[in-house]
C-alpha cells in the first residue's frame, strides 16, 4: 500500500526554535526519549527516567504546531491528596517516599498521538445490523387465576450491504510513540471527546514529548482505525445501528498527519538503593500508577531498636533471677521483664521481615483510579 505523506518530517536543528516560542528539540542522555523543551528544562533531569538529563539535540519531526490537545483537568493542587492516598498504604516507607517530595518533583508533560486525515475512495461490504423489537410474554398463575405480562425485547437483524464510498476521514487518533502501548497502560484511558484545539500558551509550563514513531511506521496501525471510522459511516449510510465483518478495498489519498497532545504528570521517589521509582498520573482522570515500595533498610533499623530494648529487658530479667535469693521481690521484676523482653524480641522480627514481603507482592506498579 502506497502512503502519500502530505506532511513530511523535517530535521529540526539543535537549538532551533519552534512555533514562535522558546521551545527547542532536546533528548534524554539516558533513555533517549525526545522532547520539545523550554530553556528552563535543558539540563534538568529527564522526567520519564530520572537518571539522564535533557540536552539540546537535532530531531526529525513534523515542525507544525499540534492540532488538538486534551487539557489538564487535574490541577497541581489535587496532586497532594493523590500522592498521600498512594503512599499511605505503605507502612515502612523509604525516607524519600513522602507526599511533599513527590509533590515538589512533579513534572507536567504532554505526550503525543498522531491525528490522521485521509481521502478514501473504494468499495465496501459488511453485515449491517438493524435494531428491532419483539413482543414476548410471561404468564403468572396464582390463586386459580392467570395473569399475563407483555415483555418487549430488543433484537438485531443482520443483512448484507455493500457499496462505494468517497469520504474524507478527519482526525483519527493513532499511536505516535514506539512505547505507545506501554504508555497507555501507565496512564490509563483518556476521554478523547473532551479535547479541544491546541493553544500554545496552555502548554507553557509543560514539557512536550516528541513523536518517535514516523507516519510510515504508524500507518499500519492507523489503517484499521480509519477503516473502523469508515464502517461507522457505511452503517450510518445504510440506516443501520450496528456493523460487523466490515471489509473495504480502497485508495487512501492525501494523508495528513498532525499531532494530538495528552496530559500526564510524572514524579518519583528514591528507593533504598537510591534508584528513582517513577510515578505517572493521568492529567485528565487523576489515575496514578507506579511501584509502591517499602524500605528494607528502615525495617532493619526499627528491628534493631526493638531488639535492643528486648536485650536490655532480658538482661534485667537475668539480673533479677540472680539477686532473687537475697532479695525475693526481685523475682517479680525478673518475671515481668522476662515476659516483655521475650515479646519484644519476637516483635522485632516483624519490621525485619515485612518490607521484603510487601515488596515481593508490590513488584508490579500499583494503580489507583479516581472517579
Amino acid at each position, binding site marked *: 500500500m502506497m502512503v502519500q505523506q502530505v506532511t513530511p518530517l523535517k530535521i529540526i536543528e539543535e537549538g532551533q526554535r519552534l512555533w514562535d516560542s522558546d521551545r527547542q528539540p532536546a533528548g534524554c542522555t539516558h533513555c533517549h526519549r525526545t522532547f520539545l523543551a523550554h530553556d528552563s528544562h535543558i539540563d534538568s533531569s529527564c522526567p520519564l527516567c530520572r537518571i539522564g538529563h535533557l540536552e539540546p539535540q537535532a530531531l526529525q519531526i513534523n515542525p507544525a504546531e499540534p492540532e488538538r490537545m486534551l487539557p489538564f483537568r487535574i490541577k497541581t493542587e489535587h496532586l497532594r491528596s493523590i500522592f498521600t492516598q498512594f503512599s499511605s498504604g505503605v507502612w515502612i516507607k523509604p525516607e524519600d517516599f513522602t507526599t511533599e517530595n513527590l509533590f515538589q518533583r512533579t513534572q507536567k508533560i504532554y505526550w503525543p498521538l498522531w491525528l490522521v486525515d485521509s481521502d478514501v475512495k473504494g468499495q465496501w461490504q459488511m453485515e449491517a445490523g438493524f435494531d428491532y423489537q419483539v413482543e414476548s410474554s410471561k404468564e403468572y398463575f396464582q390463586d386459580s387465576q392467570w395473569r399475563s405480562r407483555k415483555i418487549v425485547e430488543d433484537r438485531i437483524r443482520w443483512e448484507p450491504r455493500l*457499496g462505494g464510498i*468517497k469520504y474524507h476521514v478527519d482526525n483519527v487518533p493513532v499511536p505516535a510513540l514506539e512505547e505507545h502501548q506501554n504508555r497507555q497502560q501507565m496512564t490509563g484511558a483518556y476521554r478523547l471527546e473532551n479535547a479541544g484545539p491546541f493553544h500554545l500558551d496552555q502548554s507553557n509550563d509543560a514539557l512536550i514529548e516528541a513523536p518517535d514513531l514516523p507516519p510510515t511506521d504508524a500507518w499500519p496501525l492507523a489503517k484499521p482505525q480509519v477503516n473502523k471510522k469508515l464502517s461507522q*459511516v457505511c452503517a450510518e449510510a445504510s440506516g443501520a445501528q450496528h456493523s460487523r465483518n466490515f471489509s473495504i478495498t480502497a485508495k487512501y489519498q492525501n494523508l495528513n498527519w498532525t499531532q494530538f497532545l495528552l496530559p500526564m504528570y510524572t514524579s518519583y521517589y528514591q528507593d533504598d538503593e537510591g534508584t528513582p521509582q517513577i510515578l505517572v498520573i493521568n492529567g485528565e482522570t487523576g489515575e496514578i500508577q507506579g511501584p509502591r515500595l517499602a524500605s528494607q533498610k528502615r525495617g532493619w533499623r526499627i528491628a534493631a531498636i526493638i531488639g535492643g530494648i528486648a536485650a536490655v529487658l532480658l538482661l534485667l530479667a537475668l539480673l533479677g533471677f540472680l539477686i532473687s535469693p537475697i532479695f525475693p521481690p526481685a523475682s517479680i521484676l525478673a518475671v515481668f521483664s522476662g515476659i516483655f523482653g521475650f515479646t519484644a524480641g519476637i516483635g522485632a522480627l516483624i519490621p525485619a521481615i515485612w518490607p521484603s514481603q510487601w515488596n515481593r507482592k508490590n513488584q508490579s506498579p500499583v494503580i489507583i483510579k479516581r472517579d
Partner: protein
Amino acid sequence: MTEHPNHETQITIEGFEQVDSLVSSVTVYAPKSKPSEEEQSRVYDCPNCGATTAYDVAGGGVACEHCGYISPVKSKTLGKIADEFEFTLETISQAERGWGIKRQGLHCNACGAELSLPQGVISTSCPYCASNQVNLTTSLEVFIQPRFLIPFKITIEQTHQLSKTWLGKGWFHPDELSASSVIRRFSGIYLPFWTFDANVTAHWKAQVGYQKTVRHYNASQKRWETRTKIEWRWENGTVPINIDDHLVTGSSSQHISHKILEQIYPYQMKDLTAYHPDYLAGWQAQAYETTLTDAWETGKQAIREAAKEACYQDIPTSHVRNFSMTADFADESWRYILLPVYLAAYKFEDKTYQIMVNGQTGLVAGQKPVAWWKIWLAIGAFLLPGLILGLIGLPLLLVGGAGILPIGAGIILFGIGIVLSIMLYNKARQSEAK
C-alpha cells in the same frame, strides 16, 4: 495518483440493488427484494385450447379437462423448515389494525366483468366467463399474506367414499343413514390457520403432600393403631416445554364450526409447501378472519394450560395445594398457512347436517343424526339389572335378613347403569351438535 471516475457505479453484484443512502458520499446496495408475483391477479386458462384450467389433485398440477393439458406447480415442499416469523412490534401493530369491512372488487382479466367477492375470498371463478381466478390483492385489507400451504391430497371421489364409510359407523345412528342420506357436493376450500412455536420455561411452586403412616396408642382400646396422614412440604421445580406448530384456526366460528374442525386435526406439517397461486386455481380459499394477535392470544392460553399440566406432571404426588407458577415464553414465532378442507352438508329426514374431511389425511368428522329409540333402549338395558335385583331383594327383606345382599348389589348395579347412561346420552348429543 490516477482517478477512477464512476467507480461507484461499477458495482454489479448479482442479486443486489441500489437503495437509499443516508450519507451523500456513500452508495448502498442491498439484496434485491423478491418480486411479489403472487400479488398479481391470475387467470387460469389452457394455453392449448383456451378452456378454463384448475388444480388437479391426482395430477398434482394445473390441468385442462378439455384437452388433457397439465402443467406441474413450480413450488417446493418445505415441511418444517418453512420460514417462521417473529412477533415484532411492527407486525403486531399492523396485525392489530386488522382489515376493513368493505367488500372487495375484482376485475375479471378474462372478460372484463367487475366482480364483487365476499370478504376474505382469495380465489373464485367468474360467473360470466367461468374463468378460474386467484388474486391475493382482492383481500387487500389483509395485511399478512399466506406464505405456505398444504395442497389437497384427497380427491373429491375419495371424499365421497370416506364419508359414506364414516356415516355407516356407529350403532346408535339410523341404519339407513349411509344408504339414504344425500350428500351435497363436497367443496374443497383452503382455510386459514396460524401455527405457533415457542419455548416455554415453567417454574412452579406448591405445597406437596406426602402420605405418611403413623402408629399411635389408643388408650381407650388399649392397643396400637395406625392411621395415614399427609405431610405438606414446600417444593418447586422448573419444566421446559417446547411448543411446535400449535394450530389455531383463522376462520371465524360464525362460518366454520371449530368443534368439527378440531376433530379432523392433525395436519402433517411435513407437506408444507411454499404458497403458489396454481394450487388455488379452481378451488376456494379464504383469508383469515381472526387476526394474528387474537389467534396468538388463543394459542397462548392453550399453551399456558399445557405448561400448567406439565408442572402438575412434574409434582411427584397427587396432593397439591397453594400451587402457583410462571410460564416464561421465548423464541415465539408464527406462520400464516392455508390448509385443505372439504366441506359438505347432507340432508337426512329434512334436517341438514355438516360434515368436514381433512383434505390431506382424509379424516372425516361432522354431525350425525341419532336414532334415539336405540339410545333409550340401551339406557333401559343399563338400568334394568339393578332394578330387578332390588325387586328380588325387597320381598326377601320382609321375610328375613337375607334380602340385604341382592338389594346392595342392586344399588351398585343401578349406580353403574346411571353413569353409563349419562355417558351414552352425552355422546349421542355430541354427535348431533354443531
